[in-house]
Every structure is written in structure tokens, then in C-alpha cells.
């Protein structure tokens, strides 16, 4: 589904990604872990189409298409979804209007009929339950005045409505207490399908107790220095990222 080849990217002349390679297939859950500043969030943002980064080398294929050539909205319509690390507040636009517009843009692109207000409401009410959100959130401006936990739940709610093929969760666990973490993780798990893939970007192993990955990749200084199964995350928890940094050269040689 997703194939990242030798991706190099920089912002204001600073190289952040220095040759990332990653392959994600349908049905898989991948975790990308790494210390602060390793380039995790940059990778997620580039995949979603944020234009502040310069891709200087490499290629990203999404279902055989050149992802980097697509506009952000085109990517979303083709099934790419980014749950933001810092969800953006949109004063004056209700959650419900925002989602309905988004959903119908996607449906239109896929040749489906647009949902009317009644069908839309029926659907979102059901999806809200996945993340235990109250209906009043529909009529509130997007993320405005939401607590940190509510914002993260709202992201997963958006995901539940838009039903992406490839979900990128950027530090979705940051700022969540244990209850909120469980709710968010449960939501993500319920949305897992064998035809979809999920990439979880996180600093801590904690989230991976709830969203159990098939593969774990360690990103350090803009490169994936080690890949493995879910046990790699536990190993990281014990040893920290410093070890990985030391071991990076051997890994790179081996790779």
C-alpha cells in the first residue's frame, strides 16, 4: 500500500529525513518510534502533504501512485488520513459542518452519492460512540475550547467517519491520561480492517500496549536504524534510544 524509498526532506535548509525506507502493506500496523527531533512527525506531515517541507530526494508510492505529486486533499480522498499531533482549532466552523463537507468531498471523489443531513447525522452518531464522545461536540467549533484529550478523541472520531485506507497517527498518545488513552486506542482498534493499514508515530511504548503493532521501526536522526516486531518496542523501553544511536552504523551496514 505504501512504499517509502530513500526519502530525504529538509526545512529551511536543515535536513531532517536522511533516507527513510519503509514498506507498509494492507492489514498491517506499523509503529515508528524515536526520540524527539528524530523526524517522526516530519515524516507523518510529509505523507499528509504539508507544504512547508522540501523533499530533496527519494520517492513515496501509495497504491502505485506518486504520493508526493498529490495535493493534500487528493491524498485524503484517496484514503490517507493524518491524526494531528496538535489538532488545529477552527473557530466559527462546527465539527459537524466540517466533517460533512470533508466526507462528501471524499464520497464525491469516489463516485458515491453525497450524504444528506439526516443520513449524515445517523452515521456520525454511531461513530461518536466509538470514541465515547458526546453529541454536543458536533455543534461546537472544530477543536475550539476542547481539552487536549478531547482534541485527540476528535481526531479519531474524524477517522471513524472518513474511513481511511491508510491512517497516520502522529503522537496520538501525547497529553492523554490513561482513560483517554484507552478510549482512543480502543477506537483505533475497532477501526482496524484487513484492507487498511495504520502507522502509529510515538515517542513512548505506552500506546503500543493498546494498539499492538505488527512492526516497530526505530527512527533516529532521520533514518530508520532498526526494524523488528512488537518486542522491539519493549526493548526500547528498557534500553532507551541512546543504544540505538550507537548501533545505528552496524544496522545501516547490515541493511
Amino acid at each position: 500500500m505504501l512504499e517509502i524509498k530513500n526519502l530525504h526532506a529538509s526545512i529551511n535548509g536543515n535536513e531532517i529525513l536522511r533516507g527513510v525506507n519503509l514498506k507498509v502493506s494492507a492489514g498491517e500496523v506499523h509503529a515508528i518510534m524515536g526520540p524527539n527531533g528524530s523526524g517522526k512527525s516530519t515524516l507523518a506531515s510529509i505523507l499528509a502533504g504539508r507544504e512547508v517541507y522540501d523533499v530533496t530526494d527519494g520517492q513515496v508510492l501509495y497504491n502505485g501512485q506518486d504520493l508526493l505529486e498529490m495535493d493534500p486533499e487528493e491524498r485524503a480522498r484517496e484514503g490517507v488520513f493524518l491524526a494531528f499531533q496538535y489538532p488545529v482549532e477552527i473557530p466559527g466552523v462546527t465539527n459537524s459542518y466540517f466533517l460533512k463537507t470533508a466526507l462528501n468531498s471524499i464520497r464525491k471523489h469516489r463516485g458515491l452519492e453525497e450524504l444528506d443531513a439526516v443520513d449524515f447525522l445517523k452515521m456520525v452518531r454511531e461513530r461518536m460512540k466509538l470514541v465515547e464522545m458526546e453529541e454536543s461536540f458536533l455543534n461546537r467549533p472544530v477543536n475550539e475550547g476542547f481539552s487536549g484529550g478531547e482534541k485527540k478523541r476528535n481526531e479519531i472520531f474524524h477517522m471513524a467517519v472518513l474511513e481511511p485506507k491508510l491512517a497516520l497517527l502522529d503522537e496520538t498518545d501525547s497529553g492523554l491520561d490513561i482513560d483517554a488513552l484507552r478510549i482512543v486506542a480502543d477506537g483505533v482498534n475497532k477501526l482496524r480492517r484487513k484492507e487498511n493499514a495504520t502507522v502509529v508515530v510515538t515517542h513512548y511504548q505506552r500506546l503500543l500496549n493498546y494498539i499492538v503493532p505488527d512492526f516497530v521501526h526505530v527512527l533516529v536522526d532521520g533514518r530508520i536504524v532498526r526494524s523488528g516486531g512488537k518486542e522491539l518496542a519493549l526493548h526500547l523501553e528498557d534500553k532507551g534510544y541512546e543504544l540505538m544511536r550507537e548501533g545505528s552504523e552496524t544496522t545501516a551496514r547490515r541493511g
Partner: protein
Amino acid sequence: MDQRSHYQEQFNAFERTLNGDAASPVHALRRTAMGHLQQVGFPTSADEEWRFTNVQPISNRSFTPSIQPPASSLTSSEIEKLTVPAQDRFVFINGHYAPWLSSVKVPNNVRAISLAEARSTDRQMIERHLAHSVKGTETGFTALNTAFLFDGLYLHVPSGVEIAEPIVLVYVADRSAAETVIQPRNLIVLEERAAAKVVEFYVSNDGGSYLTNAVTEVVLGKRARLEHDKVQFESLSAFHMAVTHVAQSKESVYRSNNFALGGKLVRNELTSAMNDERCECTLNGLSLGTGEQLIDNHTTIDHAKPNCNSWEVYKAVLAGRARGVFNGKIFVRKDAQKTDAKQTNKTLLLSDEATIDTKPQLEIFADDVKCTHGATVGQLDEQQVFYLRSRGIGADDARDILTFAFADEVVGHVSIEAVRDRLEQIIHLRLDEGRVA
């Protein structure tokens, strides 16, 4: 050179049509005003208050005062389409009251009639209030309005009477308005504890290039409450000059929601004088400019006495080569301790060529007061745009949604649903045009 002699000639002709009216006190006001116009002329950009707004396109032209009511085939449903459905509606075509398009069902003791009629039936009140609050501040435009003073709304709400239904005023310019100056004159008096909602619509039905030169005077008694909404959606070739003066008594509440959506060259002057204690004054405004429009808002809030509150938020959305001007004066007089005044001006520029000149002007002579002001000028937030796009919403739609939300916040202050709906329609329409322009 402006057209003083032109208007003097027009005035002489107007006088000859007046017969008995020429001996009335109102006519004395007209003559004084014409004298004033001859003396001061129209403002120029040399005047500090008109620095950013050059009115030469108006003062160089010879508009004909619209003295005769036009023959018009406008229908009630056409009026409704231009404005809103309303139970109490006054329609003025080119400034002249059109009773066949109007309907008024206000309580019996409320006077809601055309000013032309009130000048003979309600002489005492007219003489007491008309042209009083604007005295001493008249520009050439106000003088021109008074000189040809003829029609408009006269509303008098007696003590303790609250009118729930909004009174909708429709000033429509039709085809025969071209090259004329339309000069509505409104007088709104709310006595003690009276309450009302007044909505002014300025719209065009093939009006072309004309000048609206309106003056509205509002007198609020003790504890009176007025919501005063104005929807200016004139022809894009029209000029619109408007002056509103509000005199507030003790504990009165004035709420203004002012929407400048049409017109080629627009100037709104809105002044509220809080002449006694514990008054409230809220001024909300939205300007929407596209193409070559110039929209100028000058507001003045005068805190003359202690314990008065004022809130002001003026927003502008400017596209194309549109220009905006905001000047917000707040005076806090020596007496006006415990004043709470907050002013905000926010402008969204949708193109590189759109500009705004914004000037908060606070003059504070009391020492125990809370006064804040802030002005922001900027473009759409790219993070917000990206957030919308990352959910599948196209770039243009994302920008439209965010722009609309910025503007719609002001609409939210209007308490009348039908007016809000109509405003949202017009804003959508204008934003679409703005994107094309």
C-alpha cells in the same frame, strides 16, 4: 471644485414645490443646512477625518436630489427577495415611502409612520428631536441630507412598551435612481424602558450609479433598549454615505450590527454618546470589499458619564483591489470613571492588492478606567487551511469556509434569524464574486 451651486439651484427648485411646507420649522432647518453646505462644501482628503477616503467621485458629480416619488412596478415579493419576510415593513423607493409595499402592525400607542407624514402629525416630537443630535458635527453630506429632508422613518415607542417584532426598513434604489441622490432621514425615539429592533436594508433593483446619503438619529430614554441592524447591499456602482447618531440616557442599551456588503464608495459614521450613567453600547461591524470597492467605517463612542460599558468589534474581508478604512474613536471624559471599553478591529486580506488603513483612537481623560484596543491585519491561517485540506476539502473550498467563518461571527450577533439567513446568503454571494474578481 465641488457642486455647491448645483445643489443650490436644486434647492431653489425644491423650495418652489413645497408650498405651505416652506413656512414650517423643518424648512428653517433645511435653509440653515443649505447655508452650511454652501459654507463648508464636501470634505476633501485634506480633512484629517477624510484622509483615506477621497470623495471626489461624489463631489465632482451633479446628482439630482430625488424629490418626486418614482412610478415603480416593484412588487412585494420582489422586495422580500431583496430583503427578508417581515411583519412590520417600511419600503422606501428612491427615498420615498411606498405604502403599497409596506405593512405595519405595531401596538396602537407606537408611532411608526413615514417622516413625511409625521412632519405634520407629530410636529412637537419632530421639532424636539429632529436634527438635534447631529448638531455641531454636520459635514457637507449631513447638510445636504437636511437641506432636502423629506422622508424616512419616524418611530416613537412610548414608555414601557416593548416591540418584539423587528421593524424592517427597506431602502431600495430602482432603475430611475440613476444619477440621483437618495436621502433617507430617520428619527427613532424610544422612551423610558421601551425596547425595539430596527433593521435597515439598503438594496438596489437595477439602481445603477446613484448616491445614498442617509442620516439616522436615535434617542434612547432611560433604560431603553434598541437593537439596530444595518444591511447595506447597494449596487456596486453606487455611493453610500451614512451618518447615525445615538443619544443614550441612563442605563440604556444600544446594540448596532453594521454590515457593509455593497457599494462602490462607502462611508459609515456611527456615533453613540452615552450621556448618563450605566449605559451599554455594542458596535459590531463587518465590511466585505471586492473589486475596486472602498469601505470606510468611522465610529465614535463617547463615554461622558461613569460606569458605562462599550464593546466594539469591527471586521473586514477585503479581496481584489478593495480598500478598507477603520477609525474607532473612544472618548472617556473626565467624569467617566469606571468606564469599561473594549475595541477590536480585525481584517482579513484575501489578495496582495487589498489594503486597510486602521486607526484606533482612544482619548482618555479619567483615571479609573479599563480601556483596551487591538487591531490585526492578516491572511488566512495556513495551518487551518492545511487541516481542512488534509480531511479531503479542496483548497478553494477550505479558504471559502474559513473566510466565511471569519465573517459569520459578526452575523451571529444579530438576534433575528431571517436577517442572519439573508446576511449569510449575501456573504456567500459576495465571496464567490470576490474569488472571481
